[in-house]
């Protein structure tokens, strides 16, 4: 009898942990920044209004951000970025739709930082490219965060940089992603 109760309790605990871990996690205040380094000058901008959904069961991972929500230190940089390079009136958003390939390697019930590979379609400036980038998912006391750092080649997304400032803007831009997810109510 005692053994049966023990088994029952164990089953209950395990399934409770599963219920807790399953499902969708979201954020609307994710952080993405980029950095362009050249000998002429460094340019940095950050966006703290990134929306993202992570499905911990299937590994489905989506991001969406508004180009105009990138903030720069210098007004002229912000203006050029929006008007000349990203054409943010025409292409207001950048998105990523993809998948954490090895989601099974992440134990959402156990604290730790797990290495992941993310694959999917990145859309910038109206151009969609298949990308594969490394990242980490960190589980800490039920809270989930995700981080990644990768490079984007400006030319891949048909972003034209005028000759005059070509030396001021790097050919590849370093992108840093930092998300803190909350469980979705839906």
């Amino acid at each position, binding site marked *: 009898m005692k053994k049966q109760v023990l088994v029952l309790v164990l089953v209950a605990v395990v399934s409770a942990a599963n219920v807790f871990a399953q499902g969708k996690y979201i954020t*609307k205040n994710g952080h993405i920044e980029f950095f362009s380094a050249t000998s002429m000058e460094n340019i940095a901008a950050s966006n*703290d*209004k990134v929306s993202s959904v992570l499905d911990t069961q299937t590994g489905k991972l989506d991001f969406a951000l*508004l180009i105009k*929500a990138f903030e720069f230190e210098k007004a*002229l940089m912000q203006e050029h970025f929006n008007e000349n390079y990203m054409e943010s*009136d025409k292409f207001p958003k950048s998105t990523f739709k993809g998948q954490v390939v090895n989601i099974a390697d992440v134990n959402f019930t156990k604290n730790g930082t797990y290495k992941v590979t993310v694959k999917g379609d990145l859309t910038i400036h109206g151009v969609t490219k298949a990308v594969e980038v490394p990242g980490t998912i960190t589980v800490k006391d039920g809270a989930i965060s995700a981080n990644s750092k990768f490079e984007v080649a400006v030319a891949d997304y048909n972003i034209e940089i005028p000759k005059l400032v070509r030396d001021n803007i790097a050919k590849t831009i370093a992108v840093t992603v*930092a998300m803190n997810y909350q469980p979705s109510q839906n």
Partner: protein
Amino acid sequence: MKKYILIAVLVIGAVGAYIGKTMYDKPVASTSDVKTDLEIDAATLFTEFEQNEQSAGDKYNDKNIAVKGTVQGVTTEGGKTTVILKGGDMGGVSCEMQDNTGVDKLKEGDAVTIKGFCTGYLTDVVLVRCVLQP
């Protein structure tokens, strides 16, 4: 005479370079120093974006707008505070505050006016560099 011309050219060049550099380095304007383009309430703004993102974007994006609404929530992440104003059933107006002046006192249900730059629509209408209006 030639010497004067040379000096004049040098001075003009130096002044020009200085003005150019100052313009190049000009920081992004603080929202409080920028004239308000228009005033609107949060529910109207949200509904316009929800119904037609394109036309609402053309109308409001890059504008410095004062949005009147009811506080739905306040969150702080990475040192940045966001105030959500009630919009519709599916979303609201998300205001990323420039600084936290007066924001810590805000609570759900408060009626406020927040001024900021409209950047577009994700699941919420997103305003950045926001300041709380007195």
